[in-house]
């Protein structure tokens, strides 16, 4: 591995910027993610920053079971984040739809819409679990750990958009 390569890997490991996207979550996960920024957890120590624009991000953190109404925005944001990028499913909702499974307005789980790399289980996960999940995502981002095989082939937008309502 060349010197430049290892420099880039180190930089990716030490500077993960997040974009957080709420796809119909109950706020539980979202507020715990915000708590990660605050003095007790202070993820800025690890170089983690919550970015306002998806163009600046390396890691997309998605919470919520993905509702029909957030679907389009979710796909737009996913396309807007430049490569290399990693998707973190925050909490139980994006993993399984949790208790919202069966709802006519929920089109998740998340892995049917975009490929998911890291799952952070919990309802909601504690801030330390979130930080650990981001660390897993960073390992994928900088190439220390291979990207997992996608669990589902993401489906096209139209099939989702009409889900349950047609």
């Amino acid at each position, binding site marked *: 591995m060349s010197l430049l390569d290892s420099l880039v890997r180190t930089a990716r490991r030490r500077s993960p910027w997040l974009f957080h996207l709420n796809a119909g979550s109950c706020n539980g996960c979202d507020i715990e993610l915000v708590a990660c920024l605050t003095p007790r957890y202070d993820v800025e120590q690890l170089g983690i920053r919550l970015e306002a624009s998806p163009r600046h991000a390396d890691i997309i953190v998605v919470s919520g079971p993905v509702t029909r109404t957030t679907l389009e925005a979710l796909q737009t944001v996913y396309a807007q984040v430049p490569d290399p990028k990693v998707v973190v499913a925050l909490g139980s909702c994006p993993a399984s*739809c949790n208790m919202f499974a*069966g709802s006519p307005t929920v089109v998740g789980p998340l892995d049917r819409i975009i490929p998911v790399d890291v799952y952070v289980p919990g309802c909601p996960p504690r801030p330390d679990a979130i930080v650990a999940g981001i660390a897993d995502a960073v390992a994928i981002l900088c190439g220390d750990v291979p990207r997992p095989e996608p669990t589902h082939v993401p489906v096209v937008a139209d099939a989702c958009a009409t889900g349950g*309502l047609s």
Partner: protein
Amino acid sequence: MDAESILHMLDVESAAEHRTDGWWVDVPDLDVRGLATLMRTREVRFVTLTGTPDTAGGYRLIYHWDADGALLNIATTVSAGCIASIADIWPAADWVERELRDYYALVFEGRAETPTLMLLEGDEPGLFSRTSAAGREIDPAVTARDAAEAERKES
């Protein structure tokens, strides 16, 4: 103004019932706009409007009011699927009426437009009515989208 005087003014005192959670009264041929205007002038707070399907195929609408802290529930029946809107008298009722259209395709007459609130623009109203048969047996592993896809494959 307190709940009993309001009931007296509406002339439904005898039919009203006082329970632990407030006053309840059924008025089948309720003049909702008259009621709304009265409540507005007496500063009785509009709490919300509940719609629920009744056994006869119509809908039961309950107007909830807060009169000096006491809850006043005035119910009426909608059989033809439409009722007068009170959103112009009570801006507070605007969102509820839009929501009820989304859920049960109820029509509120007198509104210039009833945009969707919870559904996407252009969706057909009446989500709850349309899907009332679905999902009684929920398998957590199967989402509604899977069901829709399976249906599409079958047909």
